[in-house]
């Protein structure tokens, strides 16, 4: 049975002026469904680029990425946008909530791309916010919430369409230790109890310890993988 994510000979390079910067260099990797993988490595090692490529918000220079049997490199921009909406939940370091919208509206955003009726959207969002402990903060805008609360709103937003894959880029990078632990426990719960496949980029070894497996990248290549 094929892996949930299959990456073969993946390369990504950028043009910067006259020079070409090789960010990923012939990387191959398999991730099973229900895995929780922490991507680690020094700055510039290519871990965020790898995450972006798997999440379909960037395109590889060469190589193949198959997620749940779909070769995402072969999708058009519009198809890729729809694939992301259906299959990927995003958690960013700086939460990336829309500041003028309430917590409720931010979580509802991905559902705006579905044909669900307003009443059903409302029920889902209320359940989603309750699941991250923010049932009483639905009408608050992001600047009325703490960093940890904003990240929990972002997690609720990432989960609202029930995607198979969660990608988290330094999800605790902007949080204090207590809030960070709460967020990591939440991700761990999602992985263990709900079977979500999670890819997390982090610099923090303590955060990585919450993952089932840790992959080290160095200069665009896979250095080490351990469980």
């Amino acid at each position, binding site marked *: 049975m094929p892996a949930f994510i299959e990456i073969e000979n993946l390369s990504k390079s950028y043009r910067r002026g006259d020079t070409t910067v090789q960010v990923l260099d012939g990387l191959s990797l398999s991730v099973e469904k229900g895995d929780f993988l922490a991507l680690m490595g020094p700055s510039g090692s290519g871990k965020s680029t790898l995450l*972006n490529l798997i999440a379909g918000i*960037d395109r590889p220079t060469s190589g193949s990425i198959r997620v749940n049997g779909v070769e995402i490199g072969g999708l058009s921009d519009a198809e890729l*946008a729809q694939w992301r*909406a259906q299959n990927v939940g*995003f958690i960013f370091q700086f939460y990336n909530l*829309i500041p003028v919208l309430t917590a409720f509206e931010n979580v509802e955003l991905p559902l705006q*791309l579905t*044909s669900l009726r307003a009443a059903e959207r409302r029920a889902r969002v209320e359940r989603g916010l309750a699941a991250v402990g923010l049932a009483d903060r639905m009408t608050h805008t992001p600047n009325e919430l703490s960093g940890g609360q904003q990240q929990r709103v972002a997690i609720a937003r990432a989960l609202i*369409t*029930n995607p198979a894959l969660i990608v988290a880029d330094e999800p605790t990078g902007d949080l204090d230790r207590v809030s960070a632990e709460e967020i990591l426990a939440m991700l761990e719960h999602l992985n263990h109890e709900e079977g979500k496949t999670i890819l997390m980029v982090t610099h923090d070894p303590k955060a990585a310890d919450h993952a089932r497996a840790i992959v080290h990248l160095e200069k665009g290549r896979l250095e080490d993988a351990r469980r």
Partner: protein
Amino acid sequence: MPGPSCTWRKGGSKMLVARLLFLNIWRNRTRSILTFVGLMVAVLAFGLLSTVVQAWYAGAEAASQARLITRSSISLIFPLPASYGERIRHIDGVDQMTYSRWFGGIYKDTRNFFPQFAVDPPTYFAIYSEYRLSEEARQAFYRDRRSAVVGRRLAEEHGFQVGDMVTLKGQIFPGQWEFLIAGIYDGAEEKTDTGKMYFHWAYLNEELKRRRISRDPDSVGVFITSLADASRAAEVSLAIDGLFLNSPKETLTETEQAFQLGFVAMTEAIVVAIRAVSFVVILIIMAVMANTMSMTARERTSEYATLKALGFSPRFVAGLVVGESMLLAVLGGLAGLLATYPAAWAFQASTGNLFRHFAVSPDTSLMQLWAALATGLVAAFFPALRAYRIRIVDGLRAI
């Protein structure tokens, strides 16, 4: 997944779009209010200046193509012999003939300028049927050679009433000239000029002789002829001028509209300048608003990238930029349009008798709206294009 029956789309609901547009406009209040005020003032200025230009041409627009004006071929300031009238009357194609002479008197103060003409009342008011005078006033006017009639606007401006004696100080014809107001005429249409005063040419002519004023007695300023068939205007004009060819006082005949446009042409440079300024104002606000929208879009780069990452289409994101710009433009444009009406009223009140008809036309209001919409669209073009094209990974880095 949301459910087996769920389908996916590329943009959010109309409710979400509307909410985002209004919330985003209110996000940087100072900037939005300043842009709104700027746009309002620009649209107001555009409307007001356009109305000035229209008012400038109003006389010519109200003038008839079926009336001919015959004046001295040298210049309007040279009078023509009154005896020409009978010869003109008998030309084939001429329906009626009358004449007038510019008086140019001062009422109390030079600031109280208004046009006064010496005319032959029965024939003049027969040709100018757009001047509406009651039968009683008409008879009173025709009967008394020292009487005069004034237009409604002029009467309201100076408080003239029937029975009043009005004294004018002659500039071209020296001395004090007294007139009894016999009636007040109204205009058949809104554009009809009711800012003039008419009195008897015969009275002026007799007084010139009696007072021994050497200002060409038995002369008129212009002859006015009405045509039975307006399409014969050129032919009749040539016939009139042909009558007096090689005489000491040759004539130049043209349609009343061409005659009025001749006056406008004397000040054409001013009109062109006013028109240019009205468009420059719009160009300036376009640049200001484009700058506002560029700053706005730049500040929201990461939000646009986030929306795209979540699956919203580039078109939806660009639409948010265009929508915000258009919303601001419509609000500012409507405010400017509505402000034009009281501003035009105040402008006319302060300029007195300068324009015979000064009103904001529906065409001007429409132009104002178009200018506002064009401003919104042009201002949004490049920021929207940028939002459309921005790569998600680049946008997310813009935090």
